[in-house]
């Protein structure tokens, strides 16, 4: 490991953790194990820093490591798997391997996007925020949320879908402003 490599690595953890976690989840990893797999990818990368070609994109290299980790999950015995379905992961991996590059929530600008999203969440009306928190903070299913908010499950799904769309648009707007400045 060359002097300065560790500094580079620490920088890269902060830069890429958000995108890498999105990428890992996008391959069908169980939400409970996303951080675990992403951390494993960072540790593998750290141990192999000597092999990293500095002319390459570090984010793409990390994603390659993570992709291999997820592929290996399919070979594990059922109770130790960190993916929700072998078949689903297979089709999602096939979809991801077309390109080294990833856009949006999985790519190299994911951290900026995440910060923009946090800003958007802050601006939500109270009821929308409660709905969103019930889903993502308390991890309630649409069924549970429906009972909590006296709604029916399809209405909850639709409301969440609308919220997601609105937040995505808000995030994109903020991203455009960042790019413009």
């Amino acid at each position, binding site marked *: 490991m060359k002097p300065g490599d560790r500094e580079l690595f620490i920088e890269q953890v902060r830069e890429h953790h958000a995108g890498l976690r999105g990428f890992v989840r996008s391959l069908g990893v169980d939400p409970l194990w996303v951080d675990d797999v992403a951390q494993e990818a960072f540790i593998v990368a750290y141990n192999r820093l000597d092999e990293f070609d500095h002319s390459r994109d570090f984010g793409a290299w990390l994603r390659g490591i993570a992709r291999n980790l997820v592929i290996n999950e399919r070979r594990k015995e059922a109770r130790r798997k960190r993916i*929700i379905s072998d078949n689903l992961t297979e089709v*999602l991996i096939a979809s991801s391997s077309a390109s080294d590059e990833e856009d949006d929530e*999985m790519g190299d600008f994911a951290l900026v996007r995440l910060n923009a999203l946090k800003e958007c969440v802050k601006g939500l009306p109270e009821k929308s925020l409660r709905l969103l928190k019930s889903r993502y903070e308390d*991890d309630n299913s649409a069924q549970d949320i429906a009972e909590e908010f006296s709604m029916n499950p399809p209405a909850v799904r639709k409301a969440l879908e609308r919220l997601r769309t609105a937040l995505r648009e808000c995030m994109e707007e903020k991203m455009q402003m960042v790019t413009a400045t």
Partner: protein
Amino acid sequence: MKSESTGSELLQRLLHGEAAAADVVALVSRAETDPGFARVIAGELAFSSMLGEAVRSGAPVVDAGAHFESNLRSAALPMDDLLARVREGSATGYECDQVVKHLWDSPAAAAQLRRDLAMEEFFHEALLDSKSESAFVRSLETRMWAETRRDHFVDDFAKRLERELTSAVEEVEDGKVVPFAGGWGYTFVKMGAVAAVLALGSFFGVQTMLDHKTAKPTLASVVKTSAGVTWSGEAVPGEDGSIRSGLYRLATGVVSMRMSTGSELTVEGPAIFEVGDDASTFVHEGIALARLSSTDPGISLRSKGLSVAEPARLIGIDARSEGATEAIVFNGDGGICLTEGGKCRELSEFEAVKADHLRERLVDVPYNPKAFANAWALLSGVENNLGSVRIEMPGAAISSGQGLEGEVQVYVENESFRPASDLEVDQVVAGEFSVAEANPGQQLQAKGELRSYLLQLWPTEAGEGDEVETSLTFDHPVVGVIFSSDRLVSSDSSVGSTISDASPGFNSNRGMDSGNDEILLSQDRRTLNLRFKGGGAQAGQVRVLVALN
């Protein structure tokens, strides 16, 4: 070539619990097209269910009928709902397979699902504290520490953070916008708050202002405190250090309590803990370290989401995070259970487990005792009065290659043991400074329970350095001191030392017996003063045995 299974074969596999996801898919599609066959399946499954209930008593049974019916219901769901379930993470294997069939035909849909899943992850990261950048980095740091122990990653990270915090403050002062993601800002604010509370006064200053009016029985007593202890909230220890039942809020500092059962509980603030009428303890927030007395049948210790089912000799609870509580065994064997659901995990020495509150799961995590350093410094039973002293955490490897110039490392090499035979120790006269050198030694009788400490002293500069002077006070009387190399070697196995050094020649002169060093044991046998010059560049070792009862 493998022939296609008949409906009857598929049904048999289902009834015997051997059906793969593909078999279930095939069975569902046959049932949809053949109502007669569907009735046969329903009848067989109902009968299986009855059989299950007849042969099992009490325990819940995996209901194949319900499972099949659930799959039938899933088969009727629109694709959007199935995709929503996959995004939620609640899709069954059968539902995933339905989605997979859809995705194979539509690469664009697969790409869209990947974006949606990533977005779901983003929402979690944006809204959940346990998914914040700081939580992720802290957890990664723990794993790094465990997996690259001798590397400098953690130190680098700490220095880096310190620099970034400092620069963040400077930038704020300059009126600039600081794009500072994650929870570090919160940490900084918290540090400021701690400093403010510290300024309020010491533990004793605060407690004399507060009147402990309750007449409840004393269940524990404060036996030791660090500097800067402050309490908030209504319940505070009595003037005599007595702890009664109630909810205690320790704002800052570390407090060690002896429970009425004989066990010790050390808590580091900010912490909230509750003492029950039966002397049970519930740690709501903060760091706690419990040492079980050998005469205590069992300490009742719980925290958010977990309970200590079988207390180990020394066990730690880290309840600082909202999303999870960690338990770590430092000595002995223990058992940890989830409060809800009754799932348990046996833990051996230097193993740790995390109770994830959200998912109600116990997850194995790497052993990382760093969070307990302050609590351990108080509970280790040794207090530093002079010199540069480092109290090493349990599990730290004892080696002659780790110390700093002029430093004294203190290892608790055995928490508690009863020697099988008499031990030969060096002659030390209490109350007199004497040169540590060859001596006839004396026998320490094999009776009672002992604790063994190993002190490792590092010279300042080889050959010409100043002496290292240190003074350590132990919370139990010192009954034996071993500083000569041969007695150190011969007592290693008797005290159960895990010394790992194998460097050539180390054993023959590892002691503090070069004739240049001095030792003084105080009259009350609690304080040991050492003046160490050493005979070279390597460390000198001293073993200290204290009597626990």
